[in-house]
């Protein structure tokens, strides 16, 4: 293992801002794994730390294939992590809205640009990503439909689901999108949580990444085979919304199989406690995402369900 500084900025009063990378093996730039980009992405940072621990062991045992190099970047934004701020410390911009970056631009454009320069030539690009809404996920792989996406490859992680996502305007400045534009096979890995560390799903994610690296001939690894992934497009998913605002009392969680008409959650009045809305499942299926905050605003997407298909 070799630790190297991929990008650096000198600060006025803080320690230098550094993006560090950990490389394993030598040769072709085979796979790059990126962790937290926002200050609240503890789970994504944790996943990378566990992956680095495993890769160190595998490297010591000579399990990284000759002529292949793996780079892990556990954190793109230590500054925001250390002051517990989600976005960039001074101007609140999001590094994951700045790709491919620009080395003569604003600070976060330079960070994105500096990182991208270091990671754009890898064959495979994996990012431990987080969702903008607070909640819990069934671990899955997300692939953006850019015309360069590779769904068959996404199945090699062995996650239960591969989600195909049509990019919206703001997605065009994310790392995943730009990786694909630069012809890296890019995948976003979603685990259960973001702020809280969920060890079980982190372990599953690390195993899946190692599984992927084995199936793509980057490492030797004797891990679990994984699931036969189901491919679902985000358009097929059913979004369930609450009609009233109030306390959110979830009765079903991510990963649960539910029946049409089953009560998923109740909304209760914040002052008087009476139930103001009962949220029922509109379909048979599996809960991919479940809201996880004490309260909910009106019309929040509190559940996302993968509907069951006859042919499954």
């Amino acid at each position: 293992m070799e630790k190297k500084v991929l990008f650096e900025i000198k600060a006025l009063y803080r320690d230098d801002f550094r993006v560090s990378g950990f490389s394993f093996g030598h040769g072709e730039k085979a796979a790059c794994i990126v962790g937290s980009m926002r200050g609240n992405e503890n789970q994504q940072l944790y996943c990378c730390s566990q992956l680095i621990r495993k890769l160190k062991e595998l490297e010591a045992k000579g399990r990284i294939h000759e002529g292949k190099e793996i780079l892990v970047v556990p954190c793109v934004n230590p500054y925001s992590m250390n002051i517990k701020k989600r976005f960039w410390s001074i101007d609140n911009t999001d590094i994951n809205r700045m790709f491919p970056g620009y080395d003569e631009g604003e600070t976060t454009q330079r960070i994105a640009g500096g990182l991208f320069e270091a990671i754009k030539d890898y064959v495979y690009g994996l990012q431990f990503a987080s969702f903008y809404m607070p909640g819990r996920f069934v671990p899955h792989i997300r692939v953006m439909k850019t015309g360069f996406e590779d769904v068959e490859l996404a199945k090699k992680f062995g996650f239960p689901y591969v989600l195909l996502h049509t990019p919206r305007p703001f997605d065009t400045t994310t790392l995943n999108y730009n990786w694909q534009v630069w012809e890296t096979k890019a995948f976003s890995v979603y685990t259960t949580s973001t702020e809280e560390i969920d060890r079980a799903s982190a372990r599953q994610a690390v195993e899946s990444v190692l599984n992927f690296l084995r199936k793509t001939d980057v490492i030797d690894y004797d891990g679990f085979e994984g699931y036969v992934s189901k491919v679902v497009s985000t358009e097929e998913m059913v979004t369930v919304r609450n009609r009233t605002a109030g306390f959110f009392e979830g009765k079903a969680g991510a990963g649960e199989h539910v029946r049409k008409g089953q009560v998923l959650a109740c909304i209760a009045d914040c002052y008087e406690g009476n139930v103001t809305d009962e949220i029922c499942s509109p379909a048979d299926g599996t809960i991919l995402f479940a809201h996880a905050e004490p309260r909910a605003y009106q019309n929040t997407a509190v559940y996302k369900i993968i509907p069951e298909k006859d042919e499954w």
Partner: protein
Amino acid sequence: MIETVVQVDLPVDETLQIRKMRLQPEDGGNGRRISIVTGIHGDELEGQYVCYKLSDYIQKNIKYLAGTVDVYPALNPFGIDSITRGIPAFDLDMNRIFPGNTEGDMNEYLAAQIVRDAAGSDLVFDIHASNIFLTEVPQIRINELHRDRLVPYAEEANVDFIWIHGASTVLESTFAHSLNAAGTPTLVVEMGVGMRITQAYGDRLFAGIVHLMKRLGIWEGEDFDVRTPIVSADNEDVGFLNASVSGIFLKNVEHGAVLKRGDLIGRIVNPLTGTVEDEITSPEDGWLFTIREYPVVSEGSLLGRILYGKESSV
């Protein structure tokens, strides 16, 4: 008459309302409409003064009003109330969620209802104030996709500068783009600085709005003279000055300064060591239409923008 554009119930004993003032002659007027919109970014307050001044002026001279004036002073009331640029609780830039979705979450729903309400205006002004970091001369920014339709209006709006910029996918989710794409001409004004009100700029824009109301047949009262703006359609004309080092920026000139090549724009100093880390000079002759207001900079922070080859401003 104050109207509620859209409202939603919040969890704890509060209703979020986005409201507007609709000014009309008693008979309802001639059907022509101008909409003045501001407050998408909660830390940009320059438009507050313009809304107040215009509303006050029209109400005191209502007999000259021939059409409809809709004034929307606060599209992001939570942001304005909490000195937050985006939508608090969601950490979301409101100007990245348009045109919204009536079936979507609270913010998407609000965005969709705002667009529905403003659409069909003969002209919309969307007033911004840069941000808390930069001070700008009064200017209108136009996406090149909409230049033919918008430049004739912008030239009459009494601003110093019209900046026609390249199309960008990210900007497709702005309020102005959504309306322009739907056929409602919408001008984006940037002027002054965040968290402050520059009344002189507000007065200028006010005069421009009244002048355009006159041109559109909405106003039959007094007209105001407007200045001829500089129009830049070539991105090569605009130079960006970014900080080479982190430090404290001390400006040497004000925005609007006419610069000769080599003129000192400002310095970046280090108060800990007591040293000058960099001196920023003008790379060419030009006109400084943006300057850094907020002193703390990190490497890359924008310090200013220069329009090259325009030695004399307006």
